[in-house]
Structures are given as structure tokens and as C-alpha cells.
């Protein structure tokens, strides 16, 4: 089982005819994801990898019962596309788009909250539920394997690295989710931890965080009450304050969001924090045995 995305998930891809959208639409199909439609205004009637393209999300939902969307449009257009998905009644919207303006991200989240929509991202790689053959987003297909580990992360390639190391160690995943690297994100650590805690198939949770913000500190509070073990890894130990390390959110500002603060909060919360990336898989293995 998975906690987000399953066999019944029918995905519509917005920005489907773009370079990124069309490539990943194909990759998702290859993984087994039920991609039912693409959307690019003005391209109705075309196909991408055999999937029909429509002008509006509304039409894609009407014709194909899409119940998840993945957004590939450029950052400044993402707000419109995401709001269109929400308004069309799509309950899960994964926003791959990078450089979504901060105020747009706030509007997206407020509109989603009003309508009860789950937003993943922006600036995320998406999510993958290996046992359901449901990948919504851009991670490489090869790294996943079905198993008992739930993974939630802020960073993309670091997730690939660590999920790859889990898979290499024979540790498959229930669901892997990227929250995205932006400062204002939809689904957060706590939302996912709650889902993993409830999910009967998830036995251990891997939390991949980084410097900046207080999401990890807030997660630590929740972890205190969890019955399942949490293994954490945090990037940015060597980052100087005041510098934005690639991700909009990865910046130590005004003394908040430091590596030390996060490690001590997570440790206090009962999570085991790996010092180096390759320590994660052994810690997970240990937790599974316990």
C-alpha cells in the first residue's frame, strides 16, 4: 500500500507538450503510472506518448476522471495552472515547477486549503509509490523498489542518492515524497509523518532535511509521539549563514534554521540522525530489526 498515490490514481500532466513535461510523461508511463491526459492550452487534439492532450484541466477531468495532476509549467505560470487543477476538483496536485514566486505559493496553498486539495511542492521531484507502480514526478525510475520504508525529503537528488542506497541495500519503499525546496511548500514533514504513522505497511520513516526554516524542528515535536522509528539525514552542515544554498529555503537567516538546531531537535524528538549519507541505510536496517 502507499500513502499518497495508488493504483486508482489517474494523472493529468499540465505543460504536457513542453520539453520537461513530455519527457517525464513518457517516463511516468514507463514506470507504470496511469497517465490519462495532458494539458497545454492550444494543443487540444495532439498526443504525447499516446496520451491525449487537452486545452484545459477541466476537460481532462471530465473526459478521463483524472484525480491527480502534475504541473510542469514555468514558475511564473504555475499559480494559474495549479489553481486550474484545484478548481477542476483534482484532489492531489504535484508541482514540479521551479522558481514559483513566494506570494504565488501562498495563494496556491490558501486556495488549496479552501478546497481541500493536497499540494506537493512546488520545486519538488514529486512522489512515488513503488508497489502501486505510481510515480508522479521526475525521479529516475530505476531507484525505487517496493518495501517497508517511508521517505520524505526536501531535496530531490539527495533523495535519489539515499533512496538508491536503500534499494541497493535491499530496503524497499512504501512511498517516497519530496516536499520541495521552497520556503512555502504544500505538504510538509508533519503531514507525511502522520500518513506514514497511520500506514500499516510503513515500518520505518526516513526524513531527509536541510538547513533553513524550522520544518525539521516542527517535525521533531511530532516525532516524539510516533510509534515508528524515524531516521534523519540533514544536508548543509558546512553551509555558512546568510547564503542561500541553491534551494530558496536553504538559508540560515537571523540565527534560525541552523544544522545544530535541527540535529538537536530531531535527536530530542527520538529520531536517529545519520552523520553521513551512507549511514542512513544501515540505520534503517537496524531499526527494522529492532
Amino acid at each position, binding site marked *: 500500500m502507499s500513502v499518497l498515490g495508488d493504483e486508482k490514481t489517474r494523472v493529468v500532466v499540465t505543460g504536457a507538450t513542453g520539453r*520537461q513535461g513530455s*519527457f517525464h510523461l513518457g517516463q511516468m508511463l514507463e514506470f507504470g503510472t496511469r497517465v490519462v491526459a495532458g494539458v497545454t492550452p492550444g494543443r487540444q487534439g495532439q498526443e504525447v506518448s499516446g496520451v491525449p492532450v487537452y486545452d484545459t484541466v477541466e476537460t481532462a477531468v471530465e473526459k478521463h476522471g483524472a484525480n491527480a495532476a502534475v504541473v510542469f509549467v514555468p*514558475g*511564473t505560470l504555475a499559480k494559474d495552472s495549479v489553481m486550474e487543477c484545484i478548481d477542476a476538483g483534482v484532489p492531489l496536485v504535484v508541482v514540479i515547477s521551479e522558481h*514559483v*514566486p*513566494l*506570494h504565488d*505559493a*501562498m*495563494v496556491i*496553498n*490558501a486556495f488549496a486549503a*479552501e478546497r481541500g486539495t493536497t499540494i506537493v511542492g512546488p520545486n519538488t*521531484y514529486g512522489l512515488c509509490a513503488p508497489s502501486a507502480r505510481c510515480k508522479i514526478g*521526475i*525521479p*529516475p525510475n*530505476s*531507484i525505487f523498489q517496493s518495501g517497508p520504508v517511508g521517505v520524505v*525529503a*526536501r*531535496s*530531490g*537528488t*539527495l*533523495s*535519489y*542518492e539515499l533512496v*538508491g542506497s536503500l534499494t541497493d541495500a535491499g530496503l524497499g519503499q512504501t512511498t517516497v515524497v519530496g516536499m520541495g*525546496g521552497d*520556503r*512555502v*511548500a504544500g505538504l*510538509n514533514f508533519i503531514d507525511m509523518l502522520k500518513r506514514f504513522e497511520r500506514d500499516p505497511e510503513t515500518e520505518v520513516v526516513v526524513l*531527509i532535511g*536541510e*538547513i533553513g*526554516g*524550522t*520544518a525539521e524542528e*516542527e517535525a521533531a515535536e511530532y516525532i516524539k509521539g510516533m510509534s515508528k522509528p524515524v531516521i534523519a539525514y540533514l*544536508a*548543509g*552542515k*558546512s*553551509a555558512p549563514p546568510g*547564503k*542561500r*544554498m*541553491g*534551494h*530558496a*529555503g*536553504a538559508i540560515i537567516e*537571523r*540565527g534560525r534554521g541552523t544544522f545544530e538546531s535541527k540535529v538537536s531537535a530531531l535527536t530530542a524528538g527520538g529520531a536517529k540522525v545519520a552523520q*553521513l*549519507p*551512507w549511514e542512513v541505510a544501515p540505520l534503517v536496517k537496524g531499526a527494522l530489526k529492532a
Partner: protein
Amino acid sequence: MKLYEYMAKGVLAESGVPIPRGRLCRTPEEAAAACRDLGPVAVKAQVLVGGRGKAGGIKVADTPQAAEAAARQILGMDLKGYTVGSVYCEQKLSISQEIYLSLTFDPSAKRPMLIASASGGMAIEEVPEKAIIKRGIPVAWGLQPYMAYQVARRIGLGATLAREFSDIATKLYRAFVRLDAELVEINPLAVVDGHIMAADARLNVDDDAMARHGDLPKTDEATPLEAKVRALGLAFVQLDGDIAVMANGAGITMATLDVMQHYGGKPMNFLDAGGGSATGPTAEALAILVSTRPKAVLVNIFGGITRCDDVARAIVQVRQNQPAAKDVPLVVRLVGTNEAEGHAILRGAGIDAFRSMQQAAERVVALAGEGLAGAEAARGDTEGDLAG
């Protein structure tokens, strides 16, 4: 993007927020003239870093001569690594109370937030938590006057000042949204002759929204090297070490720096080559890094969309095109799509290629002659974990 104080004040004035009279000056003579017009002035260094007051970047001058002298001292001065290019001469204020007011965003609540304190004038981090009022602002409705009025009363302002505070805060909020700001901070919001005005101002605009603000003046905090690499569209931060680093993805790049530092290496930079499949900008960035003559270079690529053979070819080309690059030790960690082909290409060009991040990090530190693990890792050369 941060705006200079004088730019931020311009935005405030346009938005209807009262500001003291002032003028931007680029020479001591202009400062003297400003003082003749404005009377006694504060001569304030225009820089994008905080704490300029303590660092001697603000001087009060009562006469044109004094203003000229102050400007002469401040202009060209080095403030936390930035050279002062202009001063803002602003009428000297007789301040009876200093209030703190800012608008920013709350990542947890995913909405804007008003922060206020009666303890203005000092950095907000130094104000005790209980003297600070934070008020979340509903995205859909924005900051309404009554919300700001409530906050004003809670920080202890009297009825008249509270009304002025409310008016200023709501105007500021409109500017905050209109300009896609991350932060608008007025500290102090000064009480002068029983009325409130903005005695200082910071305004940071969201970089991701700059496309819709073509009319805003541009400022840049980047070093020349940062400017050069960022022009390629890549995230780049200059650090103070000597091993150049490139990886794809912000998280993995940070982790790469961490791991390298763990083994005693000193990273020269943060460079996120991005997760895309295009190798053009990446190769250019690598070439720029190499041209700065680091002690060594570490490239760490997890190939998803990025194909390892493309990356390998780009690296080989950089080395061939740059005579200088030949002398700089280059360590590459490459896994993922078309990994075997990538390793073969690199080995063909005599470049170290690893599958293990650990080994690659140890090796680059050793090649740079740094770290405790140096001697040991150097031997890793022969047992290089080649792709299978």
C-alpha cells in the same frame, strides 16, 4: 533581491507611508548641498548588509561642512566586504519612540505575517520574544486595518498612534504584495512630534518574481565570480575554501560539501548544476571554476534525467579546451543512467571516476593535500571503484 535603503524609502513614499526628507548623494559635495537644503542630516551609507550603524556607516552632521566631511569618510569605506558607493542624507529626526514593524512570511502557516514591537531600533533577534507581537495575515483578504490596529494596541500604542500605525501597516502590506516582497522592515518606525514615520527601511524582493518587476532598480550582492556563474542560470555561492565542487541538485551539493568537510577538505564554492539534461551551462560553469585554479575539483553527479555519458563528455571537453585544467586534479563521482559509458569516457581521458561518494570525497581531499584522511585516500587511486 535587496533594495538599498533609499530605494526602499522611495517605494514607501509612493505607497503613502510618511518618510523623512532625504537625498541620495554620490559625492561629498552633494552631501554638503543636501545638508544646506535639509538642515542637520544623518549621512547614511547605502549598503545591502545590516549593522552599518555599529560599523561606522552612519554619521550625524549639523552643518554642510560636517556633512561633506562625513560623506568623505563614509564613501568608499569597506563595510563587511562591500564598498560604499553612495550615502543617503536624511533630515535629522528628534525621535521620542522607536517602534519595530515588518511584514514577512510564515513558512509553517504558509501566509504573510506582521511583526511588531515597541522595542524598535535594535535588531529583532535581540528583542525578547514576549515583547514581539506576530499576527498572521489571511492570504485571501490581506492585512485589514483592524488587524493592524489590534497589534498596535497590543504593543501599547495610544489611540492616535495606533491609528497611524494601522494606516501605515496596511499601506505597507499593499506594497509588500504588489512588489512580491519577502520582507519589508521598518526599524525604527519613529515617533516624531507625535506622528509616525519610517526612519529606516529594508525591502527584499523575491528573486523568483523579478520577471514581473522589470521597473524596479536592480541591485546585486554577488561577488564577480558569483555574478559570472549565476549568469549561466545556476545556483552558485562562493565559499572560502580551495576545492571546487559541482553537483546536481541543491541537497546533494550541500551533502557533498558536508562530506568533503567531514574528511577535512575546504570547499571553495557551492555549485548546483541542476537536474536538467542540458550539459552546456554545466560545462561552462566547470570551466569557470577550473580557471580560478582551485587545489582540486570534485564533481558529484547522480544521473537521473542527466545522462552520465553526456556529463562525462562535457567534463572531458572542459579539460581539453582549458590548458590550465590539465594541472588541476579532477575527481568525478558518477552514478545513474548510462553510468558505465560515462565511466569509460572519463577513464579514457585519464580522469578519476568513482561510484562511491565516500571514496570520491576522500580522494579529492587527498589530492588537494588536505585533511587527516589525505594520505590514506590518495592510495584510493589504484583501487578506484570503477563502474560495472
